[in-house]
């Protein structure tokens, strides 16, 4: 991946390269270059602005921007008593807050809409197409506008980001829940029908329990989407968070910094998804699923 840049560097350092000019190399195949210049590619593992940084570079950056920064840094928790604004722990926390708040709002909204769609013919007919359309609006395009609008009513920071998170996470929940709430079979529905159960009873005692597998599949996607939303929201509001880190990394060409922030985001996502999976397993067990 890094071969072309490495060769250019070696050329600057005075090495003989095949082919000799950078302009020619632009159009050459990567593997060919590796083969022709095999002895010169060592530095590919330790470049400063690598297209693909080596794992140890990312690891170093991760270490530097978590433990090292907090313990030894001027602004770290050890010296200043608060988390450092250069540490991924701090930024991860900022993002996590918005993610969770946004997810809770989005999931609640999604479930509410799904219930509305399943129970109200008017909503069934008219809401779904607009929910779809809402998702085709590129949120990143809207994010700044949302933030501008929220600015003008005096809201900023966490709330603005949470709004974007909620916007992205409600849709998977709606789609999954509508299907899930409609998944009870005929006989299961008929049984309650003979009892003349109210719609609320039908919801709590049949539709909701049947929708659980769909709900959790959706919640996993929803929380991941929420995290993406929070990060997207952090781009225009440069007030910290993993999104701000990624942009900073990209802006200053610090690939390791992007990768480290990406890695942190991925860890956060995996953790959140795992948490939902854990709740799912507990719930299913409480509902008597065979183990």
């Amino acid at each position, binding site marked *: 991946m890094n071969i072309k840049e490495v060769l250019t560097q070696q050329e600057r350092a005075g090495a003989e390269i095949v082919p000799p000019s950078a302009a020619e190399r632009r159009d050459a195949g990567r593997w060919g270059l590796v083969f022709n210049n095999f002895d010169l590619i060592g530095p590919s593992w330790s470049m400063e602005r690598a297209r693909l940084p080596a794992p140890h570079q990312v690891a170093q950056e991760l270490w530097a921007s978590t433990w090292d920064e907090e313990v030894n840094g001027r602004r770290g928790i050890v010296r200043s008593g608060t988390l450092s604004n250069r540490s991924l722990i701090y930024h991860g926390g900022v993002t996590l807050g918005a993610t969770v708040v946004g997810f809770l709002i989005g999931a609640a909204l999604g479930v509410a809409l799904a219930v509305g769609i399943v129970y109200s013919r008017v909503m069934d007919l008219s809401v779904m197409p607009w929910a779809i359309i809402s998702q085709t609006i590129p949120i990143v395009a809207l994010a700044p506008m949302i933030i501008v609008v929220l600015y003008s009513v005096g809201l900023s920071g966490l709330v603005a980001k949470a709004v974007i998170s909620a916007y992205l996470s409600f849709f998977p929940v709606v789609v999954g829940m509508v299907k899930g709430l409609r998944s009870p079979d005929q*006989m*299961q529905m*008929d*049984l*309650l*029908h*003979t*009892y*003349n*159960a*109210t719609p609320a*009873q039908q919801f709590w*005692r*049949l539709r909701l*329990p049947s929708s*659980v597998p769909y709900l959790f599949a959706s919640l996993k996607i929803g929380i991941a989407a929420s995290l993406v939303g929070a990060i997207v929201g952090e781009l225009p509001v440069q007030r910290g968070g993993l999104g701000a880190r990624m942009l900073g990394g990209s802006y200053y060409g610090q690939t390791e910094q992007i990768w480290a922030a990406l890695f942190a985001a991925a860890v956060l996502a995996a953790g959140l998804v795992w948490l939902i999976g854990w709740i799912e397993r507990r719930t299913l067990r409480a*509902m*008597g*699923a*065979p183990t």
Partner: protein
Amino acid sequence: MQAPGPADVVIGADNVSLTFQTNDGPVHALKDVNLTVERGEFVSFIGPSGCGKTTFLRAIAALEHPTGGTLSVNGMTPDEARRARAYGYVFQAAGLYPWRTIAGNIRLPLEIMGYSKSEMDERVKNVLELVELSGFGKKYPWQLSGGMQQRASIARALAFDADILLMDEPFGALDEIVRDRLNEELLSLWARTGKTIGFVTHSIPEAVYLSTKIVVMSPRPGRITDVIESPLPKERPLDIRDTPEFIEVAHRVRDGLRAGHGDEL
């Protein structure tokens, strides 16, 4: 025989027809069905597989809507009767909710109808005993054998006091001995409570033993071919099954059934 006063008619079917539209043409599940059931009767439905027994029971319970004719229950439409919670229904398949324990499944209708906690526990205990499932209340449906699941679903329908009990082959998966016991239990419950019972079965002796009226049906299109008023007394010990009256009725039913099969063989 005297015509029953209108107040006594619980189920009245007048030229009821029901057609399903399917991917390869319409299916006439019921055609011109006429039937009157009085309060407190025990009516059995018998007929070849696919002749419309389930469909008719479902129509009575307002789970299907006739495409022709009229059907009335307690002088109302089936749907009004349903809203008045007139029905206890045992489906042909057990249909237990997999996320509820057996006790939880039986408690379901009680919760919906707003029974008190202690009343619920009491009733669940009683019906579990009735169907010989005491001790299985905490198990989940998939941990029970087929027959046990079926008994649990019977218990669920018996747990609350429905005016009309509709049972679709409730004892199909039970052995003779349990079946005999449950038959007796059902008769005594019926005598005690005066419920009206609609009962689908494939067993001729069972139909004759239990019913005051036996409805023989035949398929394609589903229709009633014979309605037999039972001459047996209300009090029925198990060995009534060896009396000549019993055997005569059973013969008539068997002939009706054969005739029904005849058209398609």
